[in-house]
């Protein structure tokens, strides 16, 4: 029996799966990369309001190529549009929203997530890399829920879900949920808990690619 060429969810399918879990009316900050895809998959009937840390609520999609204003950009420095109800504000107000717990959800990429919710996503710690952190440490410290969206393993096949991060941390015990190509995983006081397997993926397949124990206790027991 030959291995199928694609296993688990694509990036778009991961974004689509995550989007299902965002309640209507949420204030959301989407990180650069896969997180940005989430906006495309918000289910019909739900309105989200997007925050970008460089000073805007009500961000809309990118304009047509060549259109837009070079001074209307998102945190990834790409041109965006403004939806009705947009407000602009300065950086201190923007991070007051973040740090003060006013945003409902932030979706971020990850290098590593530890079983206690530690996140590493800003630096590989290589000595000649130019350190650059941006707003990630503020986002994870302040936003009510932190969802990570990431491939389950690196291109080299190494686990990104680990017992303890080896890369420099972005924040301690901050991640709530992880959406990967293989599964949806929750961070609980007892470690990683499987919420859902991607179609065609079985538990052992995920556990083998996760460098920490993966609980399958049902949520109702966890809650007790």
């Amino acid at each position, binding site marked *: 029996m030959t291995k199928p060429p694609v296993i688990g969810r694509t990036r778009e399918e991961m974004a689509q799966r995550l989007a299902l879990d965002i309640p209507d009316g949420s204030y959301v900050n989407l990180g650069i990369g896969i997180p940005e895809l989430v906006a495309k998959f918000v289910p019909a009937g739900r309105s989200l309001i997007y925050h970008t840390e460089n000073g805007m609520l009500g961000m809309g999609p990118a304009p047509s190529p060549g259109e837009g204003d070079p001074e209307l950009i998102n945190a990834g420095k790409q041109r965006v549009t403004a939806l009705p109800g947009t407000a602009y504000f300065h950086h201190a107000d923007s991070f*007051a929203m973040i740090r003060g717990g*006013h945003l409902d959800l932030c979706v971020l990429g990850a290098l590593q997530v530890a079983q206690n919710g530690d996140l590493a996503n800003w630096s590989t710690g290589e000595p000649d890399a130019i350190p650059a952190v941006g707003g990630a440490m503020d986002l994870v410290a302040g936003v009510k829920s932190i969802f990570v969206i990431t491939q389950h393993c690196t291109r080299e096949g190494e686990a990104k879900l680990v017992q303890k991060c080896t890369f420099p941390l972005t924040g301690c015990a901050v991640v709530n949920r992880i959406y990967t190509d293989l599964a949806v995983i929750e961070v609980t006081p007892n470690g990683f808990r499987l919420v859902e397997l991607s179609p065609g993926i079985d538990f052992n397949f995920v556990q083998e690619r996760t460098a920490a124990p993966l609980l399958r206790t049902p949520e109702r027991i966890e809650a007790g």
Partner: protein
Amino acid sequence: MIDKRVASAAEAVSDIFDGATIMIGGFGEAGSPVELIHALIDQGATNLTTISNNTGSGQVGLAALLKAGRVSKVVCSFPRTANSTVFPELYRSGRTKLELVPQGTLAERIRAGGAGVPAFYTPSAVGTPLAEGKECREFGGRKYLLEHGIRADFSLIKGRVADTHGNILYNKTARNFGPLMAMAAKVTIVQVAEVVEPGQLDPESIVTPGIFVDRVVAIANPAHESELVEAGASYP
């Protein structure tokens, strides 16, 4: 569809509970959410802590809430007003406690609470009676006091116009504590003279972004405290 309008002041304040901490906007009468306060009096919650710059005047608005015996503690910078005897009587009789805070420290503490800053240092009040019991620390050879951010269960605020997302504009010096209190409460309730659709307010001019606002109530012709006092009104 995001729509933060509620039908009435009564509905807006319906879940304020006994023992709640409530920030109330306004400097003097400017920005005082008179109709929301009156709805709160009707609603009946008691043993409240209020955070506000003044304590109201006459027998209406904030002074009426105090007079109704609903407030056990006042956090305030200037609890003395030309036309009020309500708070002085409560204070002298020991029925209402007072935490006196310099005005700028009060504003900054509310902003800090809303901005996720648990504490900060300020030069205000160093060496005065209001520094008693507070940590004093030197930075660059000058003394500063440690002050803590404050948050509340509810904020009651008055704006001029809102959209249904809760973006707020204010009127002149009625802005005062409104934008800060909006940030610092679990539930922020704003009364405005007019509610418009999203897109009708200039995004460059919005003072309080809707993320800080939970409920918007239209009060088309809000009362002015000074006019009520002049007319000898009392509430209820």
